[in-house]
């Protein structure tokens, strides 16, 4: 049985959604890798990696291979929004939160990020409210960011076993070593 036949025998569904995890073209350049200090549960080594441009790019490539790059993209977008949100007016703030919700946290999103049902409900409810005050928006972004970082932590637990990570760590700890050999 070929695939299309298999498909038609299983479901009558009509909505096809492309999976877009291989989006490396958005990575290496224009990277807004993390600039904030780690907060609570966002702990150190991963944060060091994400704050460094080379580290970020190596990690992004690894995430892409493991089909989890949506978390990197989401983190970038949250970071960008966190940097801008204090300067946004109420309308723009609401639109931005709504856009973030649609892109990563809606059931229909092709880049849906793996967060708890509670967080998904929270962003849906906030994004759909008529007014989002700055404090609410900031708290929401912090919460979402923590969850996305937790996701990246799983990928990171495998990334640390790669040569890329060893080389990067060596470069960070002994920058002069890259000129040896």
């Amino acid at each position, binding site marked *: *049985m070929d695939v299309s036949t298999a498909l038609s025998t299983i479901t009558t*569904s009509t909505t096809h959604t492309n999976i877009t995890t291989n989006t490396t073209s958005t990575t290496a350049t224009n990277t807004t890798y993390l600039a904030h200090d780690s907060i609570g*549960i966002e702990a150190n080594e991963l944060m060091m990696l994400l704050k460094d441009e080379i580290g970020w790019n190596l990690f992004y490539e690894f995430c892409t291979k493991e089909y989890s790059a949506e978390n990197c993209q989401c983190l970038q977008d949250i970071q960008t929004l966190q940097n801008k949100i204090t300067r946004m007016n109420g309308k723009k703030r609401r639109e931005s939160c709504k856009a973030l919700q649609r892109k990563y946290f809606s059931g229909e999103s092709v880049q849906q990020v793996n967060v708890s*049902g509670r967080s998904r409900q929270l962003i849906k409810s906030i994004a759909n409210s008529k007014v989002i005050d700055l404090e609410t928006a900031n708290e929401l972004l912090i919460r979402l960011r923590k969850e996305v970082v937790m996701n990246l932590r799983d990928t990171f*637990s495998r990334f640390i076993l790669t040569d890329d990570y060893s080389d990067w760590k060596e470069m960070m700890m002994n920058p002069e070593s890259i000129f040896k050999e």
Partner: protein
Amino acid sequence: MGNIVVSPHDKEGQHHMMATPTSNNPNGGSAATAKNKSEITVLLLGAGESGKSTLFKQVQFFHGVGITHDQERIELIEIVRLNVLENAKNLVAATQHLNIPIEQPENRETAKLIINSLNTNDLEDPSWSKRLYSLWKDAGIQKAYENREKFQLYDSTEYLFENLDRICSDKYVPTVVDVIRTRTKTIGITDMKFDVGDGKQLRLVDVGGQRNERRKWIHFFNTVDAVVFLTSLSEFDLNLYEDNGYWRVKESLRVFNEVVNNALFYKVPFVLLFNKRDLFEKKIATKSFSKYFSGFNEAEEKNPVACIEYMTKLFLNEITEHPLDTVSVKTLSAIDHDNSKQVFEEVKQFIMTQQHRE
């Protein structure tokens, strides 16, 4: 890139991973030719927290792959400690949510610090071992723990709190058991390969189990030679992480139905593993099993064998397409190294035997 099919009748986020082909899959091939292939691809599938990655890590350890050396496990200190902090935070939050007071004033102070400022670096200080253990033993926290089906908590909670002496030390190096017991929600897809004789390699593929992660499974559907589907026996009183109002057993049955009846898997050996037997046996000693299954005889609810037989029937009833003679059912305690080794060896033999029959 492959497509997925979303049923228009689904609730938000409840995507089916029915569809299959990934046109650009570099390892493309038909399951029908598996007998002649030098690489056998086995997918570990199942809903979230069914134990796929725990089994995967165990198989890594059997084969000397992954984090077998102290130096490598040192890299995971932070992840183990994060598990401790998350468990502590979830328990403290649960006492508030369930309106259960933390009894001792010093434990209430510890709880405040956990919620507001404690981070993994702080746990290098051995004094945190005593403070966290004291919190863990607080009557309020223990009462919340007894009601853990009402909120999300890792299975490893008790283990981690009982090992705080080691974990909260500047000399701490995670043991293999610590790594196995540490819960990390698996994101994306990862794999490992090992030799199985006759010049063949087995490629074991581990995946995330939550709904959004299941969309990614299809990347491997058309290269698969066997499926090992895990479900947790101990989830009968729990709701989903990604959807608090949805019963885990219902989700597991639904995912199993979609996978086992997928046309691309008709010809491949299929193993159903009922995992977390250890936790399940402990749980039914204190919790009612029959409360969740109206068709189950209440008089048998403390008998694990009867309960597992009932669960087996529930799952096998979902099989409408797959030939039953290529389905094998087993129980597992994936956190138990020896049991995992034995069960995985049986699974491997079953798969190899089925392939020779083709």
